[in-house]
């Protein structure tokens, strides 16, 4: 399976990727801006995400709530998301509405500020604060990633704070911040536009040039605040216990690892996979099925690119089991991976699964477009959509062993344990 790719760059610096496919009469438009929570300055945590919300509040030629209404009334699906490194905006629409989607995206890239008002900012601040309450503050274990980021990355690192940000910093955001952020980061030279689906490439190119071509390039994007370079490993173990409104204890382990793009990251991803993806994985088999000390296990290597990344692993403790037993069992399995390494069968299984899921996901034009924007934004190489699997195939069992021995160790980890508040009181 080969995904076709055509790319060009407008004189203003906007990188454009086209991928034609007539399987369904739909088309995806996907824009990545190379800005995320890592670009936020002190006192403005959460701002990149609040700004993303403002991008849906209309622009000079698109009244208030009409951006989303335009997409919905043609039967499109759309959204946006903010993460540590980037912010994306995307819609999948019926193929004959491609021009509408480009008109909408161009209007907010070129003409956002005339539509910004204090009332809209106050409204979206309140929406985002409710998003934080719903996902973090009112949710069992809801602040795990916020806590782990703060412990794995030092205060001067751009990943030290969470994407959602603090209530206080959200309160402090102003319209001037919106204008400054827009002028600094939302320029064509800091974005990638992907169009994927049913269209004629010459026509798509003409439309992209028509709607985006006249925007001037922005000034050079300022370097990241703080210090992205950190030692490769933590250099010690950090342990934190939290009492919270949770029903069962849960143990989170986080390790500092090389960033996405580093060849060792692929070994990390395979390690996460064979540790906890699926019921044949090591941790599921040992902790959940055989020893029955854990209710579930999850492992995940964050695909983030700024200086370092983290691999997070968690296990929820079964009722009546000592937290220490789970903590010990996790440590033992990681040690074993670092000494014995994976079996050839495990390696084969991990690669097969990663490959199959890649194909399953790419059935949707929206997913394909998002991958193309990702590879272009991070690596300036959309062709990676067709070659990324080779990077996984190149990983040897001994690479995974060496990765585990070097990075998945007690000297390079944060152990965050959640304990039920009620259980403590009853036990006392």
């Amino acid at each position: 399976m080969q995904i076709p790719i055509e790319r060009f760059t407008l004189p203003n610096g906007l990188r454009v990727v086209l991928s034609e496919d007539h399987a369904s009469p739909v088309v995806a438009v996907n824009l990545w801006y190379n800005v995320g929570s890592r670009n936020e300055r002190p006192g403005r945590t959460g701002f990149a995400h609040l700004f993303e919300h403002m991008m849906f509040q209309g622009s000079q030629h698109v009244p208030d709530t009409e951006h989303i209404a335009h997409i919905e009334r043609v039967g499109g699906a759309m959204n946006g998301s903010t993460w540590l490194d980037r912010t994306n905006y995307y819609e999948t629409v019926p193929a004959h509405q491609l021009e509408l989607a480009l008109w909408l995206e161009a209007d907010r890239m070129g003409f956002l500020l005339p539509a910004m008002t204090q009332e809209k900012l106050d409204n979206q601040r309140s929406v985002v604060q409710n998003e934080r309450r719903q996902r973090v503050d009112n949710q069992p274990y809801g602040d795990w990633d916020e806590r782990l980021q703060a412990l794995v990355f030092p205060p001067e690192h751009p990943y030290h704070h969470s994407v959602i940000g603090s209530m206080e910093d959200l309160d402090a955001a102003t319209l001037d911040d919106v204008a400054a952020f827009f002028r600094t980061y939302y320029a064509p030279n800091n974005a990638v536009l992907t169009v994927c689906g049913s269209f004629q490439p010459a026509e798509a190119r003409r439309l992209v040039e028509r709607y985006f071509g006249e925007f001037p390039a922005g000034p050079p994007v300022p370097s990241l605040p703080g210090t992205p370079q950190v030692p490769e490993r933590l250099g010690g173990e950090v342990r934190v216990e939290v009492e919270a409104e949770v029903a069962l204890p849960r143990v989170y382990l986080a390790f500092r690892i090389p960033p996405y793009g580093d060849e060792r990251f692929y070994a990390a991803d395979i390690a996460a996979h064979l540790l906890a993806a699926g019921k044949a994985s090591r941790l599921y088999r040992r902790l959940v099925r055989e020893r029955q000390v854990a209710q579930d296990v999850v492992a995940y290597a964050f695909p983030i690119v700024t200086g370092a990344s983290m691999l997070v692993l968690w296990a929820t403790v079964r009722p009546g089991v000592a937290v220490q037993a789970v903590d010990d069992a996790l440590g033992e399995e990681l040690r074993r991976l670092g000494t014995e390494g994976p079996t050839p069968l495990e390696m084969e299984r991990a690669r097969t699964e990663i490959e199959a899921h890649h194909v399953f996901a790419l059935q949707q034009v929206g997913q394909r477009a998002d991958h193309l924007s990702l590879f272009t934004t991070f690596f300036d190489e959309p062709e990676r959509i067709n070659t990324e699997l080779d990077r996984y195939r190149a990983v040897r069992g001994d690479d995974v062993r060496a990765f585990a021995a070097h990075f998945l160790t007690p000297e390079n980890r944060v152990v965050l344990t959640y304990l039920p508040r009620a259980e403590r009181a009853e036990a006392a």
Partner: protein
Amino acid sequence: MAAPALDRSAPPAPGPLRPFHFPDVERLTLSNGVPLWVAPVHHFPVVTWSVLLEAGGMHEPAERAGVAALTAELLESGAGERSAAELAEQIEGLGVELHSTATWDMAHGGITALRARVEPAIEILADLVRRPTFPDDEVERLRAERLAEILQRRAEPRALAGEMAARFLFSPGSPYARPLAGTPESVAALARPEVVSFHARRFAAGAAFVVAGDLRPQEARALAERHFGDWQVEPAPPPALRVEPRSRVREVVLIDRPGSVQSELRVGHVGVARSTPDYFPLVVMNTVLGGAFSSRLNLNLREQKGYTYGVHSGFAMRRAPGPFVVSTAVQTEVTAPAVAEIVRELAGMRAEPVSPAELTDARTYVAGAFPLRLQTTDGLASRLSELIVYGLPADYFADYRERILAVEAADVLRAAREHLRPEELTIVVVGDSRQVRGPLQALGLGPVTVYDKEGNPL
């Protein structure tokens, strides 16, 4: 030479409409009488294959609540000659996505696989469905996990609100009043004999296959005959369910969760079955009310008032009438005004016809969005399953978009008046009773009763 500035003042006109056809559905019958419906689509080398069984939550007795879900889950715990660990290794070694779950209506087992690996995947699926072994230790383990999960769900406000909405919308005798996963009492009482007996009775009482993706109908038939041809299945009509509302008087059920910074709201009443003749008007009506981002509820509660990150309404249409519910989480301080707005919006849908713009937008939204979910083989397979579970004709989706586009404002108003009953709402609030009880009482919408997280009155 400077080009004239582009006129961006109005949205561009759409290009020529590309035709969309729901894939042809080939209806075959295996030699053992089991239907096999195939939608061949060859864009990607991917196949989804599902088996549907008359073994859902509706088929279990109340005292065995949770047995359908547990049985479906236990299929992966050992089958034929394979142990649980071997099954997992073989399935994952093929890169196959396997699911095995129960809904209220049915049990579903299915695989999504690359075309080249479909046959070994079907061979395993046949073992799971026909020859599960239900080893004692696995039954014990999964039962204990499900019990722990029930505890966890009660600590999670969204899941707790969902459980309590079901409990307080439906009469205690209605199956939909209980969680599909069972109650702590019913799950604690399940052991291997209950699971074995449920499987023996239900997994041979009505079954069907749906296949979507890169497989021709005759290839699918040959595969099915090889692995399921000698399977004895007796067709059996699904049991009739009695579903009643708990009450027809509007009331507030306040589940106390001290310290909550938000209140989870579930506002609703018993809705309609999938067989309702008002299906199309109801889909359009609900889209206007709370089924899209640009719906009345979301524009009001989120985009105007900033009370919430989002609000949604929906009819869960099952073989029998499922719940109609408005769902949202709002900041604790605005709990009462948010409830008042929801009730007002429901009354508004009944008061006058939707505007021509709302009607057009909702119709084109639903019609246009329809093909998006058909891009994947799973999306297509779940639409085929819908045909079988609800007894719809094979060509039902061929004119689905046209039927949505034909709904008129008068149909929407009639559907709203018939199926929204603001005077009979059960208003479930999971939040901090100390802060929200007084304001909720002051609304005067009905009696406010406070309960604990198990649903016992305080």
